[in-house]
């Protein structure tokens, strides 16, 4: 089946993409017998006419993919064995257990599981997790990139430093600044918990550091010396805004190093949403920009699970966001600012990092592009100015911060990009994770103590418990378990191996047709510690 498509590929030009793709998609559909393929709607359209809209990717990448395709997969590969499926699902999984006795304080966080499953190639989602070393608390975040991964990558590397710095007391900032000034060793600020695939850019590290240093220098200067209490909510908002501002500025200023120059431009012209949680004792703050989501798993007294949403999506489904946008722009733009549920008819999330096309004035955009490197000039997408672009900025990175005080019944928090929420209802997500975690850890030991139990009854009970355990034991990671369900669930809500295998064996460039990148972090709370906090007061 793929053979004819392959023949066509070299002939394709951008404008024909969607038509060809439509065919390809259809063919695969038939071949795969998937009952309801996920027809994607990329969060950013770039061809104005909706009928042709599907794709946006830098041109050169695109060529690589079509070329690579010729030598790659054959239809026979569609059936993966369970171990193959597992190795795909587990390739990016990561778990971190907070040490029980870290010497300082008992953490309210037991640990977290995270994982991601690419649909784009390369994946545009990013994730980060770190422990604050100079203040208390742990930071966890998921970042969903669009128009490439440059912005989400940069945000995943930098945002936590901005947050950590915003949280630091004045004296610590001074100490750090003095250390930099005199060339002494710096106090470590963050302890990262990274999967080997989560990389940091070495080249840009110096540049990023300088921007960060300017930030804390300003914080030092601004300090009036009176307020010692740092408001986490304010710190989060400042950090988000400041980082976005720095991204924008770095792109305007440019860099003498041509690689870096191109990098900062790619970061600025691509975009990313962010959903970040800060946990310190029983204080849980969630800062969200865009349409990723934070969901709290609450176990009710009867043992059932319910979901509490801790973030609001910033998209067309959110009335308040629509309202905000309309208020921020003149009345005559009321119809054009959101069209077909997209910002200016193009962008799905209404808040994001980067995306200077929606933030800079037309003049600024043109000036930067013209003075920029050739690669940027050749890129059709960057040159394209959104329609009805009258009163920029249309987009902001300012997060909405939610505060939640943890209770003993709050067992876990799921942070995930929209790739998950599009395929699963939040109630199902919480139930699946909840049952997974309790099956694994909280299956209460049986005690006979005083009851009349026969050997046969006990045997039946134990066999049942073991069966439950073994299905859970396939995954050692709650995030992996969730992805398995998200991708492989059939209409009855059970994992269907055949479906899972088909979904995972989609060729790279087709995967995006059926699903989006999925990134998940599941943070588990220590109910005993949370309960103890409560009792202290």
């Amino acid at each position: 089946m793929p053979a004819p498509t392959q023949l066509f590929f070299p002939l394709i030009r951008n404008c024909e993409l969607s038509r060809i793709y439509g065919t390809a998609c259809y063919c695969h559909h038939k071949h795969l017998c998937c009952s309801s393929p996920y027809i994607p709607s990329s969060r950013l359209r770039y061809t104005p006419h909706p009928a042709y809209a599907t794709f946006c990717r830098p041109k050169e990448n695109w060529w690589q993919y079509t070329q690579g395709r010729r030598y790659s997969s054959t239809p026979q590969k569609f059936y993966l064995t369970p171990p193959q499926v597992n190795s795909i699902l587990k390739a990016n999984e990561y778990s971190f257990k907070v040490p029980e006795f870290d010497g300082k304080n008992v953490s309210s966080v037991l640990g977290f599981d995270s994982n991601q499953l690419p649909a784009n190639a390369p994946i545009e989602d990013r994730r980060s997790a770190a422990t604050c070393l100079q203040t208390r608390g742990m930071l966890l975040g998921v970042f969903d990139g669009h128009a490439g991964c440059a912005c989400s990558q940069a945000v995943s590397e930098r945002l936590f430093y901005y947050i950590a710095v915003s949280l630091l007391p004045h004296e610590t900032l001074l100490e750090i600044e003095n250390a930099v000034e005199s060339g002494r060793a710096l106090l470590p600020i963050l302890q990262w918990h990274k999967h080997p695939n989560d990389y940091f850019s070495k080249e840009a590290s110096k540049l990023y550091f300088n921007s960060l240093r300017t930030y804390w220098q300003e914080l030092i200067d601004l300090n009036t010396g009176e307020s010692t209490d740092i408001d986490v909510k304010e710190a989060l908002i400042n950090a988000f805004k400041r980082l976005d501002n720095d991204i924008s500025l770095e792109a305007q200023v440019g860099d003498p190093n041509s690689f870096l120059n191109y990098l900062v431009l790619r970061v600025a012209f691509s975009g990313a949403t962010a959903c970040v949680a800060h946990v310190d004792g029983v204080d849980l703050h969630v800062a969200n920009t865009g349409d990723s989501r934070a969901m709290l798993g609450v176990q009710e007294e009867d043992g059932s699970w319910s979901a509490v949403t801790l973030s609001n999506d910033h998209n067309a489904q959110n009335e308040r966001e629509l309202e905000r946008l309309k208020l921020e722009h003149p009345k005559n733009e009321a119809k054009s600012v959101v069209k077909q549920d997209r910002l200016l008819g193009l962008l799905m999330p209404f808040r994001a990092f980067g995306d200077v096309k929606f933030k800079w004035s037309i003049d600024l955009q043109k000036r930067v592009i013209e003075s920029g490197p050739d690669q940027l000039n050749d890129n059709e997408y960057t040159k394209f100015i959104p329609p009805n672009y009258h009163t920029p900025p249309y987009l902001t990175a300012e997060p909405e911060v939610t505060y939640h005080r943890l209770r003993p019944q709050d067992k876990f928090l799921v942070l995930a990009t929209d790739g998950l929420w599009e395929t699963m209802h939040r109630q199902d997500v919480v139930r699946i994770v909840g049952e997974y975690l309790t099956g694994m850890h909280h299956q209460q030991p049986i005690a006979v103590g005083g009851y009349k139990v026969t050997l046969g009854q006990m045997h039946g009970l134990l066999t049942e418990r073991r069966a439950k355990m073994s299905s859970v034991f396939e995954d050692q990671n709650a995030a992996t378990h969730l992805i398995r369900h998200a991708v492989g669930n059939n209409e009855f809500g059970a994992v269907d191996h055949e479906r899972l295998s088909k979904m995972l064996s989609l060729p790279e460039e087709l995967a995006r047709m059926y699903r989006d990148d999925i990134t998940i972090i599941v943070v588990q709370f220590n109910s005993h510690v949370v309960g103890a906090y409560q009792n202290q007061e």
Partner: protein
Amino acid sequence: MFSRLLLIVRRQRTSPGWQNWSSARRSASAAEAHSVALPTQAQVVICGGGIMGTSVAYHLSKMGWKDIVLLEQGRLAAGSTRFCAGILSTARHLTIEQKMADYSNKLYSQLEQETGIQTGYIRTGSISLAQTQDRLISLKRINSRLNVIGIPSEIISPKKVAELHPFLNVHDLVGAMHVPEDAVVSSADVALALASAASQNGVQIYDRTSVLHVMVKKAQVTGVETDKGQIECQYFVNCAGQWAYELGLSNEEPVSIPLHACEHFYLLTRPLETPLQSNTPTIVDADGRIYIRNWQGGILSGGFEKNPKPIFTEGKNQLEIQNLQEDWDHFEPLLSSLLRRMPELETLEIIKLVNCPETFTPDMRCIMGESPTVQGYFVLAGMNSAGLSFGGGAGKYLAEWMVYGYPSENVWELDLKRFGALQSSRTFLRHRVMEVMPLMYDLKVPRWDFQTGRQLRTSPLYDRLDAQGARWMEKHGFERPKYFVPPDKDLLALEQSKTFYKPDWFEIVESEVKCCKEAVCVIDMSSFTKFEITSTGDQALEMLQYLFSNDLDVPVGHIVHTGMLNEGGGYENDCSIARLSKRSFFMISPTDQQVHCWAWLKKHMPEDSNLLLEDVSWKYTALNLIGPRAVDVLSELSYAPMTPDHFPSLFCKEMSVGYANGIRVMSMTHTGEPGFMLYIPIEYALHVYNEVMSVGQKYGIRNAGYYALRSLRIEKFFAFWGQDLNTLTTPLECGRESRVKLEKGMDFIGRDALLQQKQNGVYKRLTMFILDDHDTDLDLWPWWGEPIYRNGQYVGKTTSSAYSYTLERHVCLGFVHNFSEDTGEEQVVTADFINRGEYEIDIAGHRFQAKAKLYPVTSLFTHKRRKDDVELSDLHGK
């Protein structure tokens, strides 16, 4: 003191069973309100009031030692003894274990009569089930051995099993072994009975007294520090069960007692509708990993699961034993197995799941004997959940050991000194016992190697050899190559190569042996224990002359094979000693002699600062070049003539090999084949090995392993210390008169015994047997411990065996006794007696004809032996 004991006992009798034990404890503690002061002095202090401690006290007091104090941190017969399942089984793999269990059985059966304390002893018999043919073979082997030491047992059919036990599902069985005299007994009551008998004999017993540490001066026990004061003593016995390891470490000079506890579960049920009869036999279903006995009309069933839970790794007092949790999920596989075996029990009501930690040792054998570092410090612990079965016998042997200096049986297999410092790591113990506990019920096949705690001690050549296909075995923590798998050959997985028949490496070892015979092979034998003894004057020679039976006053450069004998003339060690100079000697002993030999030498060495004993095992890598072309390889590498004229047999020279200087070259190979041992300072090891291999190429050199060595050695009738030779066998009993110089001009240990034996004749004789009608491909292979029959009469057991590729027959070594037909008494064994018999070897119940030989079958060997090549180093088991 004694009245209090009786109180406990009485209470228990009125309220039998575990459930009511707590009430007894309460009243017991009430009676203790007035505490009795400890004595300040005693001959022996025993720590631990479980079955081991009380058994040692009982036997010591029976043997006439009266000044004994027994201390127990909690109450008597608590700990594992209290929770023990109470099964006494003689179906053991080692003969010494069978004997201990048999003695215990006889002791317990008359204990009630002796002390008046009810022990609940009931002779129920036991049935060990076999679900597979391999298991049946294993049972048949045990059966053969039980019969020859006089314990009745028989292999029975599944149908017979169903007749003996009412509820068993026998459809999946291929057979079983019935031991009718096995019993069940309450272990706590046995311990109390032993304590009461000991107490009547004068032993003072104090409970609720903890031993803090043992006081030691000049490597000798001087006393015990307890939480209630000090007691001066000569002997200390550590019977602290699972705490024995901790207690050993609490000393200023720690005593390493390698054992570790695992949780162990068993189930108690209410009585059946028609209560199970109290004489219903105990069932051991090893393939199902469970045991089942009758208990108060219901059943008691536990097992040894595949995934044990080690406990107390960090030490004592994390949890009280009483508070351990029941873990039903963990018990599920065993419960399934139980219901498969007895489906009718489904409706039986559960009382509880008991969690009683059991102690395991790194090699599944218990630990007894004296500490190698502290004199007077004895240990009896690590029972691998057979404490009740071994209690009586083990206590007796230890008491004999203390009173007479030697137990009446050879207990090397159980001796504390078989372990070294390497086994005292907590991590090692934790990992190893996780392997050992499932092994309790795993099939025990020949040549089994432990998988955990490996790659600890290795030669510098380990990686090189491993890359060339070496398969490894471990001795005393040291990795040794078994054989080398050729690159094109693919061996079966380890699991599949478990067999009682011809193993899959047969052809591989054959080609290695052939290469040793025709060309040259190199074997890495670095694991040997190597000591250097030097002195400023003649002290070294004098000491060695006194300790060893052969004459060591030989010219410099000569090597002497000699035994290190005890007073009874038995082998404490069997070694080769090279005289490096007038005043220094290089001593090579088996690998597992490292601790034992060192302790023996230290014990007998005079306090003399001019006499230096050094353990240099780690300093040298040993390469054994075996084969007729070894001469060529070595002379090419050293530019020195290596022919017998220049380098006679049993000679030692320091020379250069390749670029490396100072290599100790010895003309012996431990196999009787021509060749050389190279003792190489470790930094040169890789260089010398590379040189030997590259030069050796044109002579057809190849790597070989210990299996080839073993085959070569046994076909030449070389006995192994630790297997064939032990502390109860003398040189005269194994045809080694030539290694004893009774008239060397001075006395040596064991001389008197040997003189007397020479006059009176020997009562057993090591003999080589060549199996005649044995089909190597189809018949079961001999291993060791097979009974030997002479003219249909049992005369002894084999001690080791190997396939001889030269003779194309199996060769077994074993001792032949001469039991009087009327009285069963041992009589003198003469060469004539050996030669005039028709022999059979019993392998798992099948008897094979065998030819007995007192000397190696030289005529069959192709190569000519030089006259002076009486090279009989028997450093094996190393």
